[in-house]
């Protein structure tokens, strides 16, 4: 990577967090921490509150109790545009691009907070990381395949050189081979570069393979946590998330 793609990471901490809609908590008592250079994953069954948790961290869902910090900055219930400004890049699970805008325009909106002359420079840096996007700059985002679209969604957040990447099920609806490449090459790559990566992932095995620490959510609470090697030995976790009896591949060093 010849151009710095993201800023060095900051610690993202949620402490005693409760969040939800219309004053009703979907998640509560959550304490999670994501640190620079690490991939921290959150796994759990459908409806366990994983997406709600991520949305509350980036200001999309209201925090009802507890706090969220990035470095020393308290971002609890901060407006999403201000969360982006302080260096948190969020890729939602769905609706992650602007379909009527071209690929280039999507990246330009990603760099909305940059000075005019910095935008093209950043686009070049992002294209260096996702070279496949180069050939489709004038294509509308709505016409991209699932994998291309997800690359664009990540490229969009990288435009602001985020310190923290918050990714909600980036492999949803992707072919297994594309999902593996996305997780092992790109997402692990962000952390290796020094960024802080917090990832919600439905594919538990794949998540364990690239994670340094994993939280398991159930019923809106953290029910288990630990390094993937330990979780892979936990019979309850294996039974619930790895298809019973199946052994998880130990994460790569």
């Amino acid at each position: 990577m010849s151009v710095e793609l993201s800023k060095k990471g900051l610690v993202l901490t949620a402490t005693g967090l409760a969040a939800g809609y219309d004053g009703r908590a979907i998640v509560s008592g959550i304490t999670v921490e994501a640190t620079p250079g690490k991939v921290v994953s959150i796994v759990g069954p459908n409806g366990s509150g994983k997406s709600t948790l991520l949305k509350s961290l980036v200001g999309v869902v209201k925090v009802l109790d507890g706090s969220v910090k990035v470095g020393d900055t308290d971002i609890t219930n901060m407006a999403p545009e201000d969360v982006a400004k302080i260096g948190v890049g969020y890729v939602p699970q769905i609706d992650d691009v602007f379909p009527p805008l071209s690929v280039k325009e999507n990246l330009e909106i990603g760099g909305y907070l940059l000075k005019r002359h910095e935008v093209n420079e950043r686009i070049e840096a992002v294209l260096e990381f996702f070279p496949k996007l180069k050939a489709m700059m004038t294509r509308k985002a709505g016409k991209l395949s699932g994998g291309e679209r997800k690359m664009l969604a990540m490229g969009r957040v990288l435009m602001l050189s985020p310190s923290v990447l918050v990714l909600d099920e980036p492999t949803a609806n992707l072919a297994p081979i594309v999902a593996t490449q996305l997780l092992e090459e790109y997402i692990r790559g962000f952390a290796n570069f020094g960024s802080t990566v917090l990832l919600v992932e439905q594919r538990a095995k794949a998540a364990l393979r690239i994670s340094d620490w994993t939280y398991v959510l159930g019923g809106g609470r953290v029910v288990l946590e630990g390094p993937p090697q330990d979780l892979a030995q936990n019979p309850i976790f294996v039974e619930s998330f790895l298809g019973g009896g199946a052994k998880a591949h130990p994460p790569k060093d």
Partner: protein
Amino acid sequence: MSSFGFGLITAAVLAIATVGFTMQFAVTNVLNLAYGSIMINSAFVAYYVNQHGVTAWVALLGGVATGAIASWLLNRFIYTPFQRRNLAPITVVIVSLGVDLVGTFGLQAIVGGGYVSFNQSQGHEYHILGMLLSGLQLVIFGICAVVLVGIHWLLKYTRLGKAMRATSANRNLARNSGVKTQFIISTTWIISGALCGLAGTVFAMNAGVFEATSAQLYIVLLLAAMFLGGPGEPYGAMFGAVTIGLATEVSAAYINPEYKDVVAFLVLIAMLTFRPFGIFGSEKTN
């Protein structure tokens, strides 16, 4: 051929109005049925400025400013408070219908029911391609062309325009990208309101004489043009306006002109039945 000429000028005025109307709907999520009443109120402000000795083309700026300010105020003090209550979107549509009636008949109560006209010459007459067009109408064509090119430039090449399109496509994602969408929405009300005021004033100038309720049925043409091109599609709005403008005026040569707006009604019903996302829109994005 003369009905074709009428159709073109109707289309030009309608294009200015529809582009503002559809842009407003796309970015702000409000189907503002009071658009016609703001058009005619703006025309009356321009008319009164004109009556004080100011030339009609300068008075036109008064109409533009009125449309912009009235639309911004309408959003700030009426629509936004309703939207904040998380009510069903139809609630704001009904509110806008109420605003339309208050705006139109309130104006009528103030200015009376009589017809008025600008102190302005229609200009020389020109024979162009078999059509008889006045100098005034040629200027309106020119204004329409400048507006459409300007809107294209705004949406395609400026940071503000791209942020408007992003906000229209996905407001939450735009916020996550650092776009202050409330500012973008307020700015859209001002720009679309200015287009509304401009359209209302040139509509009144072109009509020759007008009164407080002259634009009351204009919303039907706007909706027909918007749904024909595709809701929220500015380029679709331009296409829809030309088609509806020509269809209503050319049909007036064959049916009682009193009923020419029925053609727009029919187009609106057909589009809502068979292709509610319009010719330029897609099912997915609408």
